[in-house]
């Protein structure tokens, strides 16, 4: 499943997309994020359960700002959450 967390406002689209089929619930992205944007939650979409990464409820409405420090306007962009994820389950829309 492609879980889109984030929002669209007057200035643009801000979504963190987590591919839950790829996510193995290891939690490395949670530790890698310096601003506490990510967390591990129980997979409610599957009765069998399991853990999956998600953007915290609190951060869902402000990731434009929380993720800002990791996104330089010029030069190479190295997003800690994306780099930490071995199965490459995380993408950012902006």
């Amino acid at each position: 499943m492609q879980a889109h967390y984030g929002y669209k406002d007057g200035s643009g689209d801000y979504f963190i997309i987590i591919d839950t089929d790829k996510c193995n619930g290891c939690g490395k992205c949670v530790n890698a994020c310096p601003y506490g944007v990510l967390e591990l939650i129980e997979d409610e979409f599957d009765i069998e359960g399991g853990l999956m990464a998600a953007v915290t409820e609190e951060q869902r409405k402000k990731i434009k700002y929380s993720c800002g420090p990791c996104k330089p306007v010029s030069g190479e962009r190295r997003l800690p959450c994306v780099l930490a994820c071995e199965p490459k389950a995380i993408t950012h829309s902006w």
Partner: protein
Amino acid sequence: MSEKSREFWRWREYRYTMPDMDWHDTKVVTAGVDIGSVGSKAVVMLDGELYSFAAMRTGGESEETAIKVMNWALEETELKTENVPYVVGTGYGRVNVPFAKRTITEIACHARGAHYIYGPTVRTVLDIGGQDCKAIRCDEKGKVMSFLMNDKCAAGTGRGLEVFADLIRVPIEELGKTSLDVEDEPPPVSNTCVIFAKAESLALLRQGLSREKVAAAYHLAMVNRIIDLLTRVGIEKDFVVTGGVAKNTGIVSRLERNLGIKPLEPKLDPILAGAMGAALFAKALYEKEIGLR
């Protein structure tokens, strides 16, 4: 009530019990309670078939509303809440359903409910609720493949329509029809904020535009915003609209016109999709618990 103090935003609360069904000879009675931000819905199912339901406004007290809506759904059935062995709570207030055994996210419930209402051909579900808008892609089993929820802002939601109904003094149930009563579509108002959209609509009214025209401009703005969200997850046939706003013909017909895809006609009330999905999950969970499967 005088015309002046009439509440144009207030929609009718209702309940219904299927007349030719009897809970005495069923194996599994389950219920789903969907506490939304504006409306609360309860659905009771007998062996996975819709039996009775109720829909009412969510008050400030989610817990009280949950009890009230459940009791109302059971009113003519002689069943009591304690006779329903498995209840699943969903929606914004899902943690406030005291008698629910489990909570499930409304996204999974809406996909499952839409799958039940419209059949297994559904691939894209658009749920326009009171305070958010969800675009969901699902497979033939009603399992979620991709989803997106926008709850940062009330533009493009039912609550925005309520505010607008009050502004142009047209009852919420007739708003969609009013917005279609125009010869050609005016340009849309701002679509990023309800407050701005309302202010712009007011300005248009002052310029002497008819309320039908202003309604059309407002609906078009909402539809444009919703389509933006839909394109992010992608649209695939069959396409359906659920939630309270699915009853607004102004929104649904504009979606059809601008997307070029006709949404399926609902067989059951689309406002109940979330609660129905929850009741169906309850059935699966209960059967698992007692070892029926």
